[in-house]
């Protein structure tokens, strides 16, 4: 498969999976709130592509895309969302805390900003292990940068020149509150204040360009470890949490959405969609079946793994 097709395939998988979640959600089988990535899949697959399983990723409650792009398994994931013993974490984590240790996805926090510091800890472990050159990725929304801990970690990452990449997904929204109400700064100037290299990827839909730039950066960083911030301009199609559109709520316009939607490769590229959709749908259906047919979390799991 060509690179673009591969990226497209991965992005489409995420899109279709989340569309399936929307479909089944009203049946109440998904046993937790869901924060969907629809609209924000493209750049995620581009960024995960050059990473190895030893390169570590932390992300947020909006973790479906990252989980799948980093190598996560559809069956395990759906079983997790369905609250099944066969799920990734035996049904204990639900949608907000996906992980896949063997692929280097080390967890997702529902506490905004919490992973900044996890990431510098991991990057520090990587740095002082001189036998390897693995790196850490920390993926959050732009809203999370308002937590003071963001700056605390920038300071530390810069002081120690840690091998960490902050990916800031700027969708202009934190829940329903626009960025203008919340931020007096730009990430670019903040990066500069901490002497951290900054890149902006203006179009999150441009998978190839992002993949290309990012792959080079990773290669370079593995030679010269240092912290880097990448801001990606992107757009959330659906409500913050849940499965619906919310353009009727008055805080953003349908026009805005349409401007993105009509450029969306996952909608436009009918050739590739046609080529892969059926196969993906089948995988998803298999996973759904797996989830449906798995037993619920065992009661006696309630008190395991506390200590």
């Amino acid at each position: 498969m060509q690179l673009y097709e591969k990226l497209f395939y991965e992005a489409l998988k995420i899109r279709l999976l989340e569309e399936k979640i929307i479909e089944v959600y009203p049946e109440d089988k998904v046993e937790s709130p869901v924060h969907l990535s629809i609209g924000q899949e493209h750049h995620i697959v581009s960024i995960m592509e050059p990473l190895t399983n030893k390169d570590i990723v932390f992300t947020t409650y909006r973790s479906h895309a990252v989980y799948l792009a980093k190598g996560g398994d559809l069956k395990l994931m759906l079983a997790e969302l369905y609250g099944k013993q066969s799920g990734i974490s035996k049904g204990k984590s639900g949608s907000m805390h996906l992980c896949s240790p063997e692929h280097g996805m080390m967890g997702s926090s529902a506490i905004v900003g919490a992973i900044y510091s996890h990431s510098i800890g991991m990057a520090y472990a990587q740095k002082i292990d001189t036998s390897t050159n693995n790196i850490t990725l920390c993926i959050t929304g732009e809203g999370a940068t308002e937590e003071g801990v963001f700056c605390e970690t920038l300071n530390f990452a810069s002081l120690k020149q840690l091998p960490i990449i902050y990916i800031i997904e700027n969708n202009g929204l934190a829940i329903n509150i626009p960025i203008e109400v919340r931020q007096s700064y730009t990430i670019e100037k903040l990066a500069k204040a901490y002497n951290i290299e900054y890149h902006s990827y203006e179009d999150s839909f441009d998978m190839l360009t992002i993949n290309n730039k990012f792959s080079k950066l990773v290669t370079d960083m593995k030679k010269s470890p240092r912290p880097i911030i990448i801001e990606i301009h992107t757009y959330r199609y659906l409500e913050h949490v849940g499965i619906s559109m919310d353009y009727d709520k008055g805080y953003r316009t349908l026009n805005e959405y349409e401007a993105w939607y009509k450029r969306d490769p996952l909608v436009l590229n009918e050739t590739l969609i046609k080529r892969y959709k059926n196969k993906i749908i089948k995988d998803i259906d298999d996973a759904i079946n797996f989830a449906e047919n798995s037993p619920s979390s065992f009661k006696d799991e309630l008190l395991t793994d506390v200590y």
Partner: protein
Amino acid sequence: MNDIIIYKNAIKNSMHYALEKNKNSIIYGIGVTDYIGIFGTTEGLEQEFGSDRVFDTPISEDAMTGFAVGASLGGLYPIHIHIRADFLLLTMNQLINSAAKYRYTYGGLFQTPMLIRAVIGRSWGQGAQHSQSLQSLFAHIPGLTVIMPSSAEAAEKCYKYAVMHYKNPVISFEHRLLYDYKFNKNSSLIDQNNPFDSYLVEEGNDITIVASSIMVQEAIKASDYISKYENISIEIIDINSVSHPNQTLILNSIRKTGKLIVADTSWLSHGLGAEISRMILETDVTLLKKPMKNLGMAQATCPTAKKLEYEFYPNLKDLVVSIYDLHFGTLKGKKIPSEEEIVYQYKYFKGPF
């Protein structure tokens, strides 16, 4: 129908009242001005009272809590709202090191009145980080007043009192499942002069239940349920203020019944039941005739799967079983609520938070 008020509307009334009657009050927090408006409790307030007094904030809980201390010192009455109590863990430094101590440390030269509202709750697979009920962490700290209004009346009266009369920081936990609960508008269980006080919800002679927040409603349900099948007279006390429980009320009740259930929304260790136990054992070791029952969250992190979540939280069945056990010493032949009766509304809760 006219005699009904739902919890969230009672809170909204109190917020409106605050802005209207106390010109120094301000209301802020993440989501306060959006279309959801904290389960509707702040809906329309920005439009009516302006953006200086009702505003959203950056995602900076630590700063916005210290902000309350400074604003309070500057003469404002801050009402800071958190859509989930879990986020309070980012504000502990300001609440405990500053707000709780300002008045005392400076020998009474300052006061820092404020109201912190934080939403607790269960259900909908909110999991590890969106399910905690942290009242005991604050009740441990002198200087903080911690309340858990369990009814429309309690919420409305406590908040109005806090905003108009009370001179210390108040931290209030609202259970998200209560927002749509219907209450009698004319209820008058709350002491007008001391609305934070613990109070009697139901009088009875056989068993005392001391409960907090939604567990008060569960206790009422348990009592109703049992009354259909058995003749057990249950006394229910709403602790209302976790930091300032009414010791006399509680001990007198136990003196009468000799049997105690404490039903709280959080973990047991160093929790409310422990605190009530201390109150008893420091006073009179002969009060209880039977070992007490403590209901609260299981000794674990909150899991998301419904099956586990169901086991994790205390529920109607746990109450009923505890009551039977205390009263009869057995469950044999006793009617236990069905799963449908137990899960009632928390099964169907679907957010948005």
